[in-house]
């Protein structure tokens, strides 16, 4: 009906900031990381996923989207040769999340198979300064009067208020801090995939759910403003377009519309490459589109890597 992110913002009491936070930008601009050499590898990795991975002519999206993701994570993980503290991360696949909260007397719950989660032993430090957090008090959440904000949400009788990533992992799990969530839209048929706007909304909701569950596990169930905000990142892709998001949970007091709000930085619709041609396109005996990857954007890969390294570098 209308862009999903705005609805998600209201539901999670969040203020939107365009672009990536300055902490992540700092990693991007840091020359010591040697991001230039990685460009070549990134290009190979994209070619492998899109062109070379199959014995058939061209791989389908259900195959190349997860392969591209795995390859990118592999390249990022190999950086742990340089930064040993990167090895304190663990990927959890087929990860189930459940979180409940109340929003202006409406009980909301989010549940589901949220894709792939990367956990780390140490939490990400807060990206926004105290002043920025306090400044969100003035921000007014946009309402959608007369449309109820819970439009398009499924109303369900909930008998158990489940509240845990903690139940997804047992107690004593050493990698207890959710770091990044990954969403892969890999359905072959376009209508089965989320559109970019809906994908961003989904990323926001799940990042919020994870952060909320972690905050409740750390600080208890009472709604309050958090001393130590919880930061959860989120990356969504359909194999070509990437959406990057950093979410900071400042408060668990979600019933009222005033007070400190949560913050989210979104960098949307980043293309990793323009086109991947498996077989050269020939029109009237002239090659119009040569085979290979064209229009490769190294910046998108650098942002991926920067989000991966965030928190340890």
């Amino acid at each position, binding site marked *: 009906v209308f862009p999903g992110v705005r609805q998600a913002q209201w539901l999670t009491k969040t203020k939107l900031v365009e672009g990536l936070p300055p902490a992540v930008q700092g990693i991007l601009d840091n020359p010591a990381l040697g991001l230039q050499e990685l460009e070549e*590898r990134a290009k*190979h*990795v994209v*070619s*492998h996923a899109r*062109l*070379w*991975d*199959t*014995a058939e002519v061209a791989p389908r999206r259900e195959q190349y989207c*997860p*392969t591209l993701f*795995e*390859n990118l994570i*592999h390249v990022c*993980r*190999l950086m*742990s*040769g*340089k930064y*040993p503290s*990167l*090895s304190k991360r*663990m*990927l*959890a*696949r*087929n*990860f*189930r999340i459940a979180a409940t909260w109340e929003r202006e007397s409406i009980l909301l719950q989010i549940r589901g198979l949220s894709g792939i989660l990367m956990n780390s032993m140490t939490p990400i430090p807060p990206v926004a300064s105290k002043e920025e957090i306090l400044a969100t008090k003035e921000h007014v959440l946009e309402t959608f009067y007369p449309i109820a904000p819970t439009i398009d949400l499924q109303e369900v009788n909930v008998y158990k208020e489940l509240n845990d990533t903690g*139940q*997804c*992992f*047992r107690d*004593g*799990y*050493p*990698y207890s801090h959710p770091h990044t969530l990954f969403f892969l839209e890999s359905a072959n048929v376009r209508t089965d995939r989320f559109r970019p706007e809906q994908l961003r909304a989904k990323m926001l909701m799940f990042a919020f759910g994870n952060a909320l569950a972690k905050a409740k596990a750390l600080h208890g169930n009472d709604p309050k403003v958090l001393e130590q905000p919880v930061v959860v990142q989120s990356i969504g892709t359909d194999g070509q377009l990437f959406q990057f998001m950093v979410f900071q949970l400042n408060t668990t007091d979600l019933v009222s519309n005033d007070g400190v709000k949560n913050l989210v930085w979104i960098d949307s619709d980043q293309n990793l490459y323009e086109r991947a041609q498996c077989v050269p396109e020939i029109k009237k005996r002239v090659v119009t589109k040569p085979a290979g990857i064209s229009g490769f954007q190294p910046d998108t890969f650098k942002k991926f890597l920067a989000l991966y390294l965030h928190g340890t570098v």
Partner: protein
Amino acid sequence: MVALRVWRLLRPGQRWFSETVPGAPSPPDSPLYPPVLASITAKSKAAKSRRLQRFNERVHAAATVEEKLRLYGKLQRPKYMVYPQTFALNADRWYRSFTRTVLVPGMPPRGAAAKPPVAAAGATLEAGRAPEPGAEAPTAAAASGAAEASGAAEGAVPYVDVGELRSLACDALLQESFYQNKKRPFLYRDQDHTPGPFLTQLVSTLAASLSGRNPLLAASSLDLNPEVNYYWHHGEEVVAHGYRKGRVDPVRFQIDDNPHLQIRVPKQLPEVVPLESDLGDVPVIDHKPSKLPLFKKQYENKVFIGSKVADPCCYGHTQFHLLPDRLKRERFIRDRLEDQIEVVYRSNGIASLFAWTAAQAMYQGFWSEADVTRPFVSQAVVTDGKYFAFFCYQLNTLALTAETIKNNPRKNICWGTDSKPLYDVVEGGNVKGFNDEVLLQLVRFLLNRPKEL
């Protein structure tokens, strides 16, 4: 005309003899008659050999490797499907005879490339490293295996932090089996529930943390659930029925393998022993392959290492295989076939590695008529989640067809260990009985690299 030419060249004063005149040039350059060749289309042995020769020339003359592979696998006929993971009894003997492989128990004597040897162990390592052909090799392999185990335990410590790697491995194991809440495993899909994800986690984290020590790993490519195929001819048989009845045909095999995980690298692993070494005997089996049991089917002849020819990571490093539920140890014990447990691991190692190394060789342009000029080495780990078996394969020859195998003294070599458990049991958030040896062997595998690096 001929007489005219000779007369012109004849110097005055000399007599013309019909024998070769001293000083006269050799007989005319172009032959008098075209060469007498067999027909191409006749139903005769000579015609068949001429057709084969033309085919071989066509493949030799192919411009690109893709063209060569396309021509090599162009003709489709019924072929035996060889499954690396099989329940057939004594399958590893059969597979060794199909692929002309010698099985050497234990790991190959690993040289100083992996880690600089500590002083005392260094001497034994060097002695064990010198390639020894013939009958000394099995004893040398066993002796150097034992020396290497103690040497590596000392040599490994200054370079590899075993404690950290052990904690990584235990974390991966605990996460998959204990900490993460998962639904119940699907029926007969226990391997996908816990050991599969554990293996993926273990290998990816170990490879990442060891990439600082092994620059080859830093340039490697990790494939999840790739496809490896190879097609080859070995031996001859007479066609039994059908319109081609009575003709002599090569016996065709095809391996279609799906390792759980594989690591491909841009540079080749170093050879373990020289190309022409003879470390044992290849078993000779007089029966038809269908007695194994092996079944025939006709479909596309694929040769594939996991990615296409254009990929720069065209050499293989290590494969990881997960045994499915139908081949788990409890089933063999229940059917009173305990000796077949090791056979499963061995046949998987030999068949998968042969297919992978041979496909790598074909990607470099070698095939059965153009035999390899350098050995291709790859490694594999076969596991069922708890028990690990390690294999190292050296491909010395691709010439296995009936024609080319006649004068071929080379044999492929496979070193393999028995399966050993990595841990005893996982109880309440703790891993009990963790076996460092298995982990060290895995680390040694991952650290393997060419000597220049």
